[in-house]
């Protein structure tokens, strides 16, 4: 019972810390807006925005107030989910009405890609086992090529695939798939699959994950307590798995920010209906309520992921509670 209480306390503290981080992050975002050169409202709105829209915007974002008072006004509205209205991209619509469904797609894509990446990295780590000189050519080459930016990987990939299909289209009346040529504007599930693959294959994500996963597996397998468990004739699998849960969740959570960055460019490349695409479109047209709303959502998702990872860690590893108790 004591342990449960300690766990609840840890969770509470983490939640408070997360809220504090959220306040700090929104503060940074708000003051980035206020730091706009000259008259802020002119600097951040598209050319030719009508004066009444500008005025409403200034009121929405507390730009007509002192910075701190303005921040409080804006934070209060944001806390209710009111991030103002879109200026251009989806004119007049509530920011969250447009941003939330797009952001859900982005989160789904990022989580799926990261999860598949972790599973593949684990499989490769299990197949290769301990590092040996013979594998170095393979891992070295993988290391080198997966470090390429995901959008470059996507260009290579789409060019190769398109060229392959063109070859068939030209030679034998073959019906091209509905996602040809990549990228297309029509929404096809394959575009999401390709985007996910490129997230895994680019930005060094896969080999970074692989190295971490392999090191963690090797650390647990070679741990003395595993030798002791083997020596007493018990099955080591439950012990190994249990001890890998925490490092695996940490490895996952630690890479989410990276993926949430890569996904922006990859989504734009594949013209996916997601937050990254919306963010770049809105930013291009200086539709800054959307940009700010999405920035807050991205930040929030990172904070929540870390919070969840921390609480799961504390629930599984009793040492974590002792450290924070």
């Amino acid at each position, binding site marked *: 019972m004591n342990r449960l209480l300690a766990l609840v306390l840890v969770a509470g503290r983490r939640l408070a810390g997360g809220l*504090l*981080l959220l306040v*700090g*992050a929104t503060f*940074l*975002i708000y003051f*980035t*807006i206020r*730091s*706009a*050169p000259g008259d802020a409202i002119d*600097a*951040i709105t598209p050319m030719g925005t009508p004066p009444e829209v500008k005025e409403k915007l200034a009121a929405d974002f507390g730009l007509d107030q002192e910075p701190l008072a303005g921040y409080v006004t804006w934070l209060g509205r944001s806390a209710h989910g009111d991030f103002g209205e879109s200026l251009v991209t989806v004119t007049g619509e509530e920011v969250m009405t447009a941003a939330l469904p797009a952001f859900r797609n982005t989160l789904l894509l990022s989580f799926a890609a990261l999860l598949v990446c972790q599973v593949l990295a684990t499989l490769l780590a299990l197949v290769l086992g301990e590092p040996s*000189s013979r594998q*170095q*050519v393979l891992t*070295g080459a993988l*290391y*080198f*090529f997966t*470090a*390429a*930016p995901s*959008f*470059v990987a996507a*260009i*290579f990939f789409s*060019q190769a695939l*398109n*060229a392959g299909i*063109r070859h068939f289209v030209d030679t034998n009346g073959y019906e091209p798939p509905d996602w040809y040529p990549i990228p297309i504007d029509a929404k096809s599930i394959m575009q999401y699959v390709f985007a996910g693959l490129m997230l895994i294959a680019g*930005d*060094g994500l896969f080999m970074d994950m692989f190295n971490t996963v392999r090191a963690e597996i090797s650390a647990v397998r070679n741990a003395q307590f595993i030798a002791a468990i083997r020596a007493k004739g018990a099955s080591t699998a439950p012990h190994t798995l249990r001890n890998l849960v925490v490092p695996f969740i940490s490895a996952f959570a630690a890479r989410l*920010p990276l993926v*949430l*960055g*890569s996904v*922006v*460019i990859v989504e*734009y490349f594949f013209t996916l209906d997601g937050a990254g695409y919306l*963010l*770049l479109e*809105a*930013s*291009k047209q*200086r539709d*800054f309520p959307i*940009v*700010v709303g*999405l*920035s807050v959502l*991205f*930040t929030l998702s*990172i*904070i929540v992921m*870390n919070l969840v990872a921390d609480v799961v860690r504390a629930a599984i590893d009793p040492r974590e509670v002792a450290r924070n108790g």
Partner: protein
Amino acid sequence: MGKFARLGFWLSGLIVLAVIALGCIAPLVPYEPADAVSYDDALVSPSLAHLMGTDEQGRDIAIRLVKGTEAFFLPGLMAAAISIVLGGLTGALTGYATGFFRTAVLGALQLLDTLPRLVFIILVCTIRDPSVMLIAFVAGILFIPTVATVIRRKVESLASEDYILAHIAHGFSPVRVLLHHILWLQCWPILVRQAAFVFGYVLFVETGLSYLGDYGVQEPTPSWGNMVAQVRSLPSDAPWPWLIPAAAIVLTISGFLAFGNLAARRGEEAVR
């Protein structure tokens, strides 16, 4: 360090040297993008006259590739310098200090670390006039926590080592011990690795945004990113105008990351 890793170290070191050399000579090469256009020479395949061929507007790709290094070279160095210097110092301080000061700095670092980097860069670009220098400046700031964390861990583990305690007991000032014996002598491999990483990140963001075409380098000024962007309109039998800069991006980013890791590994083996 095995034979293969040594080979990788020298190869990636060669890439790094080549990029640095290109970055240094690029400003000396006279180039006026507007004058280079010559539609008669459009899409010439690589030959002696044009080593890497020409693009759709007949511009020589080799020269644009060299000039393209200007887009990221100084910004990359600046971002690396910002994150290394500020990250190294805050890392050393938080590893050494105790009490409220440490908690406050750690909190600030955690706050910076929470911001999604690319999204925040785009936010800044929406609000201020976008330039690669601005992007690099923001990237440098956003990488401070990453550097500070690895340095802090190292300092914390070293601070209790006997020889460090002995130095302090012998009357050397703790600041000198911290800066010289810990940061300089012990942490340089980590700093090299991080510097290469931040440089690679700036190249990634610059080429990525230039590829997308709104915040990075704008045509006709060359950037590897906007050179690759020509892929959208190129005929399939003339891939070199995008293939060559794309290969340059892959080689440079992978080369810098590999060099950072392998140089740091060599350094760590030597330090130990």
